[in-house]
């Protein structure tokens, strides 16, 4: 209930850091699916990309509108004991949770109306309009009212509520794969008035389920032939297909280098130090300090496949070592950071809980906008550092104060 407060100066720093990072990540994605200069120049190891399960060979060479791959990012930040911000994850595929950000604000506005006004808390409610405008700007057809849809996996998806929420707030159609069909490399929506061409798809379906003809043939959530329409430039897909190669947890370690390489700038926001388990020296270092490390699988998210070295039993740690040795590419380790806490009103009293921060960034042809605020995710269990909602995390509103 109690909002988390960030000052205008702190926010400016975070905003600049995210903007810089997403600019570099977009350039990386374009590069990796075209010339691969960053591999040729030896900045990122070729083998790391070749072994990344989300490196999507099917979209090699496809040109996307405005060379934009990441339109929506949910960047996870943490603060250490000294208050410094670190980037923890980039989440460039189908980040969720933005509806909580919007709804948390509605709640705090009702609870603390005067405070919101007096402290000049910056608004977040423009998010759906900003997103809608970006979707609009991607239309491949020069028509005055392009058809924009939100593609959901359907009612069984845990974020279905958010999908309906976003579709409604943007006034776009919420569709499932079976509502769409491809003909002559164009995508159509089946309506009571016949087929209507679709221009932009904001999809919340993962890559591998998007097109059974290209990816998993057993997927019934996707649209057969969709990638062909995408390849021909007849439909825009948001976020782009293949973004997972850039938010792989082992590739993450190279993002500061990417910033240096593509922008010739020093990173504004640092990474959390990350050890690649493929590197023998780094692996040895981690194995000797397991109790101070968190081990993560490189291609899992949502707090799955994660072992906290300080909490795990020695059996678990030994087993983890064997898993790592069997498949080092699939693991990274990071030092456990004493992340910051904020006061939470739980069971009738104020208690400190660990939090992170997930601002939502929108990248369009006119630049990158980060809605001032975001989702502050809370580890509800006392002492826990795991904030993912799938692991018993909660959330609270984030107030970015006006200057």
């Amino acid at each position, binding site marked *: 209930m109690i909002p988390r407060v960030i000052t205008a100066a702190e926010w400016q720093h975070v905003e600049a850091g995210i903007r810089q990072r997403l600019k570099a990540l977009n350039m990386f994605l374009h590069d990796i699916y075209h010339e691969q200069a960053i591999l040729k120049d030896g900045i990122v190891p070729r083998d790391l990309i070749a072994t990344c399960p989300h490196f999507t060979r099917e979209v090699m060479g496809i040109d996307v509108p405005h060379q934009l791959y990441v339109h929506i990012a949910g960047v996870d930040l943490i603060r250490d004991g000294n208050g410094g911000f670190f980037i923890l994850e980039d989440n460039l595929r189908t980040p969720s949770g933005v509806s909580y950000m919007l709804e948390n604000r509605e709640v705090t506005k009702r609870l603390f109306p005067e405070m919101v006004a007096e402290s000049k808390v910056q608004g977040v409610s423009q998010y759906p309009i900003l997103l809608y405008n970006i979707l609009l700007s991607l239309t491949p057809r020069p028509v005055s009212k392009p058809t924009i849809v939100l593609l959901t996996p359907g009612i069984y998806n845990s974020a279905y509520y958010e999908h*309906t929420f976003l579709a409604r707030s943007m006034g776009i159609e919420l569709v*499932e794969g079976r509502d769409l069909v491809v003909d002559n490399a164009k995508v159509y929506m089946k309506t*009571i008035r016949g087929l209507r061409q679709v221009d932009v798809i904001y999809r919340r379906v993962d890559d591998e389920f998007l097109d059974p003809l290209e990816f998993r043939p057993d997927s019934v959530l996707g649209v057969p032939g969709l990638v062909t329409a995408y390849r021909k430039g007849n439909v825009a897909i948001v976020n782009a297909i293949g973004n997972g190669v850039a938010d792989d947890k082992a590739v993450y370690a190279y993002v500061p280098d990417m910033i240096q390489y593509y922008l010739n700038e020093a990173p504004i926001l640092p990474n959390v130090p990350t050890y690649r388990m493929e590197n023998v020296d780094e692996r040895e270092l981690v194995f000797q300090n397991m109790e101070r490390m968190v081990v993560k699988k490189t291609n899992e998210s949502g707090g799955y496949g994660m072992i906290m070295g300080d909490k795990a039993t020695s059996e678990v740690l030994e087993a983890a070592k064997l898993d790592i040795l069997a498949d080092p590419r699939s693991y990274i380790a990071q030092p456990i950071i004493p992340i910051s806490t904020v006061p939470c009103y739980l069971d009738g009293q104020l208690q400190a809980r660990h939090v992170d921060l997930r601002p939502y960034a929108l990248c369009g042809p006119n630049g990158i906008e980060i809605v001032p605020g975001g989702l502050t995710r809370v580890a509800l269990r006392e002492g826990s550092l795991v904030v993912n909602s799938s692991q018993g995390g909660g959330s609270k509103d984030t107030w970015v104060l006006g200057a």
Partner: protein
Amino acid sequence: MLSRIADSLFWLSRYVERADGLLRMLRVNFITSLDKTSGTDFNWRPVLTIFTTLNNEEIDRIANDANAVLQFMIADPKNENSIRVIVTRARENARGMQDHLTKEAWESINEFYHLVQSMDVAQAIREDRQITVLSDLIHRCAHFIGVLTVTMPRNHGWHFMNMGKYIERTVQTADLLDLKFRDLSYDLNNPADVPYWRNLLLSVAGYELYLKTYRTGVQSHNVIDLLVLNMQFPRSVLYSTSRLYDELDTFKPEIPAAQFSPMEKALGRLKSRVEFSDISSISTMGLPAFLSDIRNDTLRFSNLLSQVFFAYV
């Protein structure tokens, strides 16, 4: 509007109408089955023949066991036409398009579903609460239909729901007539009196209207008049097809004539078939043939409707 949404609205409404019709029919027949004084041997064979897919042998097994019939027709998940299955389907349709229903409408169908799922029909039968169970379920249907009426916007979706409702009702009324006249070997001049028709009339909530409207004449002719031709009676075939016609008409400006006219023709054919018939023409051609024409016309229209609006390509 997405075809899938239109399709779901259509079937949601159709399934609830089906459940409602079935439940009313079951309640009346169950009450009849309790009445041992009437002298006629009641059994469930006609009901089971028309409203289930059981074969002769299976029908014989339960035709004289009201409780077994209720259990089967209300709660058996293996019976494709049980209330349980129908309501589950209705709710599945609703669930995939919650966004297009009002909160009240969704809650109503969802509660209906949970009631049906959690209901212990066997236990209720042991406690002789059959009528309570049936009445509760009928109330659920009425609640849902009422909530739709007061909350749903009058847009395309509303028209699709109404079309689902009236198509279902047309077919059901034809089925019920068939059920009752089958016992009389479809003899339209049979001497069966009001008590014989009472059950049918009660199950379509037409008993009072019947008593007020028809004072003389051959009872079976009057029954046909009420259920087929009476424009004041909301379950008559003519009323349902007329309403269907109005609903379809709202789409006329929306879709190309090439797609609209076949539907309009099919429905026009059904409507004029009913409109221009009377007892003598029906008895000339025979009631079974007349009813089967109505069913076939309705099915043909329903298929066209689904091709144009729901089938996409």
